[in-house]
């Protein structure tokens, strides 16, 4: 089926734009970048439309990549139903966001660089999805991390952007460390890194080993998918351009952890302790991030914490054994969260860079299309039936109830908070009076060009109707999942929580605008706590970063480096200088004396050859 | 073994006697030809029609004072003319004038020695000829001579490239490096000659070869090294007497070599333009007879008094030669010799003709011409020839 073509198209786009983009016109850069993604998308469609319903895994072997002793790793790619869903999400959403970027990035510097990085990201993401063994997956895994770093730090002349890039990269290292250990363990136990081989042998292995592997993989997934306690990089990652936030930090890359856990389900289903850990981390993250989201004023930060929270839902689903529900939510989340980000990007674009909700308001009439599409996403994420978020969240909550009822209730509360903060952001931005500087540069918000609105519209349709793509039905057989009976009561409870959140937000920010401030005044301490994100950054800074920095400075730099290593190096250098002072006499700068040394050497070589040759 | 050495010695003596005489008379011919182009009689006083002029010149040059200027680098100054004439004469030794013949029961080739890398030998020897001129120019301790020598070496190195490249093209067609085999492959008539034969007629090759050959021998229009009006006389300014004569002879010997090579490589050597059964063997008879008749006729009505005896004598000699060509015994070696001499002579005549016609190049034009036109043209020609030969075979 020539699966390799799917990632290679964006790679070609990256190479062309990366090498020659500087000299290309913008339209040519667009043509290359978007054309490559279109080709990739088209190839995905062709493969999916082809014969076979992908019941079984189709694997293609291209070449042996690493061959060393027992380690034999091929460059293999595989496609099955799970991969198919991911491929559609990645290429489809990626394509829409690429198109959107034409408008959003039109006035930015480094235009070709942006699209080259985006294409490179697409390449690595598709490698990640298509990989047929852990190492190839790891290549994509690291590659998307690299692209994330490059794109977060896209405005590299701003310090906070580069710092955010570094933060994302370093935090992800912790996760990758766990992932690497997991791979070592997998190879040690199963003698292979191929999915097929590993998963075939998994049922026969001891539970302790499977649990260890599962937990280590979870560490990797927590880093990539921004789960507790490694979520701190994601809110900062909003320093990148908004399409990047939408594509990488909402729709695709951050879901790689969920995908990886779902992919490794044969390991997890034999390691219930690991599963339980996933579920706990998931629900904790969902709840925790949602509370922070309640009080953020930066529109992108709100959605960033919302992303963390929704990713927590996905982990909850995976942890509860409802892998298909996790993937289901992954897909719907990709639709509505990408839409929310792109919409907020459109708002920011309209206000020429303003991101603070307190300076918005009343934009409903200024940017009606953006408002309309974002509203679709908002109702979807709030879980209002029959829109997409309702179905997937419902699946997860039902599974959670089956797993442990307290998780269900925490999930319901989170759902209510989700609805509240999303609509809070919507109401603050679009309703009421315009609170920005009436005479300043943001005085006249303008609607975005059609090239940005069309992707918004498409995503809005998907957000509304995406729930009818029944992923659980599609993947149920793949994951060998047991059927969990629907319970109308549970559905009603979660829907009610969502509606309650919406109503509360309406009352506080539209009907009685003063009410929010009085609440803040009443719960000052609590508000400060969540407004400051529970001081987690400060905590990490004090407990981890500072000691490491100081330890490095005092012990490693002043002690080890300057004292011991430099002392050694300088000592060797001094000895070398002394010896060199003697040898310098040979380096007379006279070519004929050099030639004499060569001659001496060759005479010695001939003598040595004679002796070695055993001549008489 | 002994007879081989004796025959070789005889051949050496004969060839070099003939060659030296030819060198002397070639100069007479040139003066005559130039004179007639310029509508004047040329040498006329010494002997009938100035026929003894070369002899007089030789006597003059030998008896002249042999002057060695002060402050020259003496060994090299003395070696240079010797080197020049040696290298010029050496290449004659591998040139075949005719086929293998039977003389008095001995079978021998009309050639001093048949090397199977004859072409390379000629190239090698001619490339060594540069030293004579370069050293002469340098050792004379004279800036005109030095400039002449420098120019000449630069020119000869530059023109050697297209020359070698064009030689490669007919060699590709004939598939041999032996000059004898080269001619034997062209036997059978004018359409088998390399200049017209093969998958790609070597007409361009021939032209490039002639042009580069002219430059190699420092002849008009490429005689920059001895441009009188700029450099007095170029590299041999400081030479006199027989040393000067040596350079002179070297130049003419080189002309002969180039002409012979052109004949052998492109014009089929000693092969007649059409087969003997169609009467090619009668051509020399007809030519010499016609010349004899014309000479006799002019002798009957002489324009000058001394022609009254000389022209009839010439006429009778020509007629006798014509008669000799009819003798079957000598035909086997005389006919090839005739055709060889006729072809070589035509090219030599072309040399003279051009000298009487064309002006001299400017130096930058000269170098630009070879590097920017001649060399690429030769490469292209070689490429096309090679391709076509590869395709046909």
């Amino acid at each position, binding site marked *: 089926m020539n699966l390799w073509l799917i990632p290679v198209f964006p790679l070609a786009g990256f190479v062309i734009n990366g090498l020659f983009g500087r000299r290309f016109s913008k339209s040519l850069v667009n043509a290359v970048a978007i054309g490559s993604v279109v080709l990739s998308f088209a190839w995905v469609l062709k493969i999916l439309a082809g014969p076979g319903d992908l019941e079984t895994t189709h694997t293609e072997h291209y070449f042996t990549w690493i061959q060393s002793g027992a380690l034999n790793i091929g460059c293999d790619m595989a496609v099955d139903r799970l991969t198919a869903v991911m491929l559609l999400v990645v290429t489809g959403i990626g394509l829409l966001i690429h198109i959107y970027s034409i408008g959003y990035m039109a006035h930015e510097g480094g235009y070709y660089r942006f699209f080259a990085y985006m294409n490179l990201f697409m390449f690595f993401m598709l490698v990640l999805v298509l990989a047929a063994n852990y190492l190839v997956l790891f290549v994509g895994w690291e590659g998307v991390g690299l692209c994330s770093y490059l794109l977060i730090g896209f405005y590299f002349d701003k310090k906070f952007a580069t710092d955010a890039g570094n933060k994302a990269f370093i935090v992800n290292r912790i996760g990758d460390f766990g992932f690497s250990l997991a791979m070592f363990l997998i190879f040690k136990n199963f003698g292979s890194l191929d999915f097929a081989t590993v998963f075939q042998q998994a049922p026969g292995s001891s539970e302790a080993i499977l649990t260890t592997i599962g937990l280590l993989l979870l560490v990797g997934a927590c880093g990539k998918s921004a789960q507790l306690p490694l979520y701190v990089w994601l809110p900062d990652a909003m320093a990148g351009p908004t399409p990047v936030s939408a594509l990488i930090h909402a729709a695709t890359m951050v879901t790689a952890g969920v995908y990886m856990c779902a992919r490794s389900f044969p390991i997890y289903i034999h390691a219930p302790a690991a599963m339980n850990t996933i579920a706990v981390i998931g629900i904790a993250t969902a709840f925790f991030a949602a509370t922070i989201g309640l009080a953020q004023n930066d529109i992108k930060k709100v959605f960033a914490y919302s992303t963390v929270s929704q990713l927590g839902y996905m982990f909850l689903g995976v942890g509860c054994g409802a892998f298909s529900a996790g993937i289901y939510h992954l897909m719907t989340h990709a639709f509505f969260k990408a839409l929310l980000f792109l919409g907020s990007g459109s708002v920011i674009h309209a206000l020429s860079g303003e991101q603070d909700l307190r300076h918005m308001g009343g934009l409903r009439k200024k940017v009606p299309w953006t408002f309309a599409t974002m509203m679709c996403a908002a109702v979807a994420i709030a879980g209002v039936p029959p829109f997409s978020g309702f179905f997937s969240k419902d699946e997860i909550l039902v599974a959670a109830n089956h797993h442990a009822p307290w998780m269900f209730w925490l999930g319901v509360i989170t759902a209510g908070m989700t609805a509240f903060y999303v609509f809070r952001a919507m109401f603050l931005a679009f309703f009421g009076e315009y609170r920005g500087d009436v005479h300043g540069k943001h005085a006249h918000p303008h609607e975005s060009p059609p090239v940005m609105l069309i992707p918004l519209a498409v995503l809005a349709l998907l957000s509304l109707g995406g729930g009818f793509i029944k992923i659980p039905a599609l993947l149920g057989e793949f994951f060998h999942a047991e059927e969990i009976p629907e319970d109308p009561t549970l559905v009603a409870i979660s829907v009610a929580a969502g509606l309650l959140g919406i109503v509360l937000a309406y009352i506080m920010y539209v009907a009685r605008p003063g009410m929010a401030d009085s609440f803040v005044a009443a719960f000052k301490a609590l508000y400060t706590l969540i407004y400051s994100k529970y001081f987690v950054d400060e905590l990490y800074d004090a407990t981890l970063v500072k000691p490491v920095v100081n330890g490095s400075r005092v012990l490693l730099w002043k002690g080890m480096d300057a004292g011991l290593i430099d002392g050694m190096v300088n000592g060797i250098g001094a000895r070398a200088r002394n010896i060199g002072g003697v040898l310098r006499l040979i380096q007379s*700068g006279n070519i*004929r004396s050099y*030639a004499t040394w060569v001659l001496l050497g060759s005479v010695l070589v001939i003598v040595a050859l004679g002796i070695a040759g055993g001549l008489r | 073994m002994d007879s081989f050495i004796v025959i070789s010695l005889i051949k050496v003596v004969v060839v070099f006697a003939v060659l030296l005489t030819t060198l002397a008379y070639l100069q007479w011919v040139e003066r005559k030809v130039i004179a007639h182009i310029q509508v004047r009689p040329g040498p006329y006083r010494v002997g009938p029609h100035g026929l003894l002029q070369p002899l007089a010149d030789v006597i003059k040059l030998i008896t002249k004072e042999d002057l060695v200027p002060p402050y020259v680098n003496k060994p090299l100054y003395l070696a240079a003319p010797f080197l020049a004439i040696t290298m010029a004469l050496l290449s004659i030794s591998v040139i075949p004038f005719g086929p293998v013949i039977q003389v008095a029961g001995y079978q021998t080739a009309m050639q001093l020695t048949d090397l199977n890398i004859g072409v390379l030998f000629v190239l090698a020897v001619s490339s060594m000829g540069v030293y004579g001129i370069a050293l002469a120019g340098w050792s004379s301790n004279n800036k005109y001579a030095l400039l002449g020598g420098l120019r000449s070496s630069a020119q000869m190195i530059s023109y050697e490239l297209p020359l070698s490249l064009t030689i490669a093209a007919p060699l590709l067609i004939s598939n041999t490096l032996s000059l004898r085999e080269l001619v034997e492959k062209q036997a059978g008539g004018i359409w088998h000659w390399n200049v017209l034969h093969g998958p790609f007629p070597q007409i361009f090759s021939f032209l490039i070869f002639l042009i580069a050959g002219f430059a190699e021998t420092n002849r008009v229009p490429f005689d920059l090294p001895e441009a009188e009006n700029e450099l007095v006389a170029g590299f041999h300014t400081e030479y006199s007497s027989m040393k000067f004569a040596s350079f002179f002879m070297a130049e003419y010997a080189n002309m002969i070599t180039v002409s012979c090579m052109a004949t052998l490589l492109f014009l089929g050597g000693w092969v007649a333009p059409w087969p003997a059964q169609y009467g090619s063997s009668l051509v020399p008879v007809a030519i010499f007879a016609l010349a004899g008749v014309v000479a006799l006729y002019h002798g009957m009505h002489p324009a000058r008094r001394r022609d009254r005896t000389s022209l009839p004598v010439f006429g009778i000699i020509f007629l006798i030669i014509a008669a000799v060509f009819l003798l079957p015994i000598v035909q086997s070696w005389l006919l090839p010799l005739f055709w060889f001499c006729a072809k070589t002579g035509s090219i030599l005549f072309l040399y003279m003709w051009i000298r009487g016609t064309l002006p001299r190049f400017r130096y930058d034009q000269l170098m630009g011409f070879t590097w920017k036109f001649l060399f690429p043209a030769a490469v292209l020609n070689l490429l096309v020839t090679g391709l076509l030969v590869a395709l046909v075979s």
Partner: protein
Amino acid sequence: MSGVPISWYLTLSAILFTLGVAGFLFRRNIITVFMSIELMLNAVNLSFITFSYYWKQVNGHLIAFFVMVVAASEAAVGLAIILTVFKNRQTLNIDEVDSMKN
């Protein structure tokens, strides 16, 4: 038919090579030094062709041929360098071209 011992050829090659080295060591003129290198190359070529005779194989000739090609390119570049050196420093003495020293 009495031939020449093959060791004579090789000895001749050794003598020429040694003379080349001597020229390289004892001469100061860059051009002469350069010519000494050419002399060494020639000596080695003689060895190669002698070996070719010894083994009755053409390979030695090919090596010698490549040596010639390399020598030709080396001469072109080397002489250009010498011209440039002379133009900038007005000397051909190899010991005076020492601006890299100290």
